[in-house]
């Protein structure tokens, strides 16, 4: 994963933002979504600019590509949160909080890594 690959990814996202049309095809929505895509790309890329660990870089690029493909497929650029009930991953044996938190973090899909769970 080299610098030029990351920059190509950034350029790809910005090109998608340039020619995006919303699902509803309203000019207002199209405009908003274009701005959202460009702004989201800018903030996330800058936020992760200083990462040097190749493993994390790979995860971030996977997140980026997954979000691109999901966004293009569903014609919706916003992140696609999944629902997991509070004790969804609990077994009869391990119901402690720390274990649950660890499991939930592991079960989070790759395209939601930068999206905070509220």
């Amino acid at each position, binding site marked *: 994963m080299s*610098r*030029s690959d990351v920059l190509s990814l950034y350029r790809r996202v910005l*090109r998608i933002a340039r020619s995006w049309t919303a699902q509803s095809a309203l000019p207002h929505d199209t405009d908003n979504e274009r701005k959202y895509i460009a702004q989201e790309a800018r903030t996330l*890329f800058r936020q992760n*600019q200083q990462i040097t660990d190749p493993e994390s870089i790979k995860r971030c690029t996977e997140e980026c590509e997954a979000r691109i493909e999901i966004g293009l497929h569903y014609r919706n650029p916003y992140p696609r949160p999944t629902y997991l009930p509070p004790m969804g991953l609990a077994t009869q044996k391990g119901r402690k909080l720390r274990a649950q938190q660890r499991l939930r973090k592991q079960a989070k899909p790759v395209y939601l890594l930068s999206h905070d769970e509220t």
Partner: protein
Amino acid sequence: MGSRALAYCVRSVARAAARLNHGSVLTRSACAPLASEQRPLSVLSCSQRTRWTQPVRISGPSVQQCRHYGDLPPLTLENIEERVMYVLKLYDKISPEKLQTSSHFMKDLGLDSLDQVEIIMAMEDEFGFEIPDAEAEKLMTPAEIVQFISDKKDVYE
């Protein structure tokens, strides 16, 4: 910009018309009612059976001779450089005072590679054609951008 091109065309037509317009009575009478600048060119061939060799035109100072068909005026080096510097001045991370044609984005202006990608995208938007990734990474000063665009658009120096 369009009016400048039109004025240039009208001037060139007036020069050409002065050469062609000798002794053609019909054309002189026909050009009198013409007042607007938007009249297209037309060739009067029906009434000119005797003078078939020479195409007669409705001439006069107010005829639009060359047709652009919605094309832009031709690019010149100064024009390209002007537009490139204008786009760069609009970018908020560059201070207009420090900007010169030879200022390097990373060394002189303190930008990073993500900013350089954004700048090249802005240039693509301005000039209307896509710049491939491999060459876009190498453009690091405004002078190089101007050189690249003039190479792509065949603007001779």
